[in-house]
């Protein structure tokens, strides 16, 4: 019984709660795009100005939002929503580890801790998300990847990656 429900929900796309949420988000985005377009000045001598495309896109978004809400209403079956197995098999910890790793990289770049440190923390966190415990092994692999990457791309290809204390020590 549970299997059957799962199959039909897959064939019909996302469940009604998601459709409703996406619909509301699209309407909000449409409003934002519309309000923002009102700050733009009137068109030049002939034709349309920069606001026209924004109005078109806002209209499209609003339409899509309404259609999403209609679909959500059509699929609204409170009983079925109770048995939805969607959330039971999601590995939230893994997702959070990767997002955390990206945050760590962002903090490293913003505070000037540098690319190597930031990218290594991203590496270790992602490996953790896929079941590799944080330890000497993953840290060692992380640095043996990020250090050469940094050197090759900054020295070899002349790109600029964020530098910190570690990078300055390397390049001296």
């Amino acid at each position: 019984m549970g299997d059957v429900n799962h199959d039909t929900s897959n064939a019909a796309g996302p469940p009604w709660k998601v459709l409703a949420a996406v619909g509301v988000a699209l309407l909000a985005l449409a409003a934002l795009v519309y309000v923002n377009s009102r700050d733009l000045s009137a068109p030049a001598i002939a034709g349309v100005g920069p606001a026209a495309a924004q109005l078109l896109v806002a209209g499209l978004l609003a339409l899509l939002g309404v259609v999403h809400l209609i679909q959500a209403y059509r699929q609204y079956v409170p009983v079925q929503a109770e048995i939805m197995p969607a959330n039971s098999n999601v590995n939230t910890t893994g997702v959070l580890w990767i997002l955390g790793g990206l945050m760590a990289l962002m903090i490293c770049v913003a505070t000037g801790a540098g690319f190597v440190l930031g990218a290594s923390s991203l590496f270790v966190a992602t490996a953790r998300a896929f079941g590799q415990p944080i330890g000497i092994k993953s840290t060692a692999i992380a640095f043996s990847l990020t250090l050469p990457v940094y050197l090759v791309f900054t020295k070899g290809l002349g790109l600029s990656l964020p530098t910190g204390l570690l990078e300055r020590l390397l390049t001296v």
Partner: protein
Amino acid sequence: METFNLLWSGLVVALTPANLLFAGIGVLLGTLVGILPGISPSLTVALLLPITFKMDPTGSIIMFAGIYFGGMYGSSTTAILLNTPGEAASIATAIEGHRMARAGRGGPALSTAAIGSFVAGTVATICLAFLAPVLVDLAVKFGPWDYFALMVLAFVTVSATFGSSVLRGITSLSLGLVLGLVGIDKLTGQARLSFGMPALLDGVSVTTLAVGLFAIGEALHIASRYRGVAEAVETVRGSLWMTLDDWKRSWKPWLRGIGLGFPIGALPAGGAEVPTLLSYTIERKLAVKPEEFGQGAIEGVAGPEAANNAAATGTMVPLLALGLPTSATAAMLLAGFQQYGIVPGPLLFVTNADLVWGLIASFLIGNLMLLVLNLPLVGLWVRLLAIPQPWLYAGILVFAAMGTLAANPSAVELAMLFTFGFMGYLLRCWDYPIAPMIVGLILGPMAESQFRRALQISMGDGWVFFKEPTSACLLALAVLALIAPLIFKRLRQFKAEDA
């Protein structure tokens, strides 16, 4: 005859040692990423955009094209040996190819895929060389209204016609269109949707969006389903060579695959999934031994693989002749052109004839390289599949972050990457397609500038799009392409209720 001369001059460009090297790097890199699950060819091009910024345009674009073709070879290898298609267009290959590999016929499966792709790529490139100039002659007469209508048609076909849901496809497209609006308007210099943030004035970078949606989104999605079990890799046992019987059973599916793939790819219809699945269905219907389908029929590998490669070459027709990208990878190639200030379209054949014909000729060379390199290297590629998932995805994310930071070393860019990554994850969870969003971001601003130019010429008369016969026809086609899948869906429901 003239086409052969142009193709010949293109070969001269493509055969210079530097360009040969670029083509070689491209196909090897493409095969590598095609084989590794989690990296798509479009993602690789996105990551390479900031890195190749200072290189020679012709060489880089030849390399990008090599990645595109190499990626398809690689993903068919993964599909056959691992039953995990590296990209959607390899699903058909995975069905029969993996069965063959399990029955100890992995070698012939890989061979028919490789040789079929080579034949398809070569034939389709020659078709491209003949068709593109014809289309260019036609496109020179296009007015801005015609271009706008053509882009609307491309929007609809890419997002709605062939996807699983019209609503979700168009939604993804319109999110891309919103991102395309962000930044300074090129005509009037006014800022749109930047909310006073200086980092947004330059607009949303294609690299950041593609890397976020593809790399981060994919990694999050795989992590969310991670259960700690690795998939088994099927080793290649027995001979790599095809028997005479295999050849006999393969050549017709190859040709039929080309016949399906090239036209569908060349129409602004987008994607190689439709022709591959069509080819699979047709081969099953025509098969002498239909009972073998589902048990490892070589026709089911030969046809779809040829269709896949021919369709990929086909998408180069609208891209080069009209500047119209109809797949995520074509959109990334367009971004590659734009990075060097080159605008694909009819004029490109006049202003950068060397580049265009060099690129077209490099398809021939790239396909030959793939054939020569890949079959002997199969052992090496198989070993790549054994990389444990933690290291694989951690490495992918480090390179993703590197690519984004190389384009713009700031924390704001990373915050955008973070947002797009999470968005890509949600889109995957709820089955929204990703490619329309990328196409929307790149094609949206182009469509807007044609729209405004048309209205400027017509002195603000909006009816111009319907008065001009070409644009009116194209817009009518767009409406048809939007409604057709909805009608078919209704019909199917109707029949289902009847039965």
